[in-house]
């Protein structure tokens, strides 16, 4: 099931064997035969990749919304905050960016595709696209509008450029009318795109 717009690259199950796909098989086989990597390690990596996704980042955001001490830790050391709830990215230098009534944060990697993937999974194509990387720093409001996000002129938009050594996680504003919700309920409001900063969190009605 796909709920996203028509892709540039098809949702195909492997598709035809291109030269680059042949190269993928060739390099992987050689690395395994030479003992550089092992089958078991590779399968463990596939499993780790499957466990990653926006549900991890959403847990952090929901906890930050609920627990002032955790929000404080996220502000000071987001890597430690991830680690403290058992999330994987101990190696990642993570900065949490809090959206407020005055400031809206959005994340890009202008040079390539750096992204907090242990917390959000693999990035969507558009995040890696030439157009996003180029345009969001030049005209962020126009790009946000493509996602249906329009912000009042009084809100300052800050664009953060990721690097190999530094990744960002946006903490969207907590939606109104969610007082008394538990962390699990709140986490359902926190989408991948809201943690990149291109949309707000879902509303109670939008769930």
């Amino acid at each position: 099931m796909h709920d996203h717009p028509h892709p540039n690259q098809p949702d195909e199950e492997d598709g035809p064997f291109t030269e680059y796909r042949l190269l993928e098989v060739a390099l992987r086989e050689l690395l395994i035969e030479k003992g550089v990597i092992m089958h078991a390690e590779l399968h463990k990596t596939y499993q780790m990749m499957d466990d990653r996704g926006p549900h991890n980042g959403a847990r952090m955001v929901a906890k930050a919304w609920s627990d002032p001490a955790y929000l404080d830790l996220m502000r000071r050391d987001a890597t430690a905050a991830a680690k403290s709830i058992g999330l994987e990215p101990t190696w990642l230098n993570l900065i949490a960016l809090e959206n407020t009534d005055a400031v809206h944060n959005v994340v890009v990697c202008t040079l390539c595709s750096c992204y907090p993937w242990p917390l959000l999974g693999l990035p969507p194509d558009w995040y890696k696209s030439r157009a996003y990387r180029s345009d969001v720093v030049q005209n962020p409001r126009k790009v946000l509008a493509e996602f249906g996000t329009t912000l009042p002129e009084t809100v300052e938009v800050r664009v953060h450029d990721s690097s190999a050594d530094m990744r960002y996680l946006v903490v969207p504003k907590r939606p109104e009318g969610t007082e008394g919700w538990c962390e699990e309920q709140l986490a359902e409001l926190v989408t991948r795109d809201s943690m990149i900063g291109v949309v707000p969190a879902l509303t109670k009605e939008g769930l």
Partner: protein
Amino acid sequence: MAHKSLTDYRGVHDLGGVLCEPFAPDEHDYAPWEKRVHAVRELLATKGLLRVDELRRAVEGLGEEKYRRLSYYEQWIWAMTQIMLERGIVTDAEIGARVEAVRARLASDG
């Protein structure tokens, strides 16, 4: 005065603020082969055999035409292979022979 191309003054990858294409927020579900490329890269990185800046340097060395034409994981597998060659972990001859062997195997599998 002749119009300067992107690479006249900055790297082909260095796209911040260079308005070039209309933006559309599309995406696709990653194919299994793309996930395999990602997993092998990650494993090589954890073993200290492939740094992320090294991979990017190789991707940036693709040249403008290929940089634009190749898909993301096509860029990655090409760049990963370059780094493995540079580090002497595999040789050109081994890669070439294995690509042909895989091609033949797939052809005989029909």
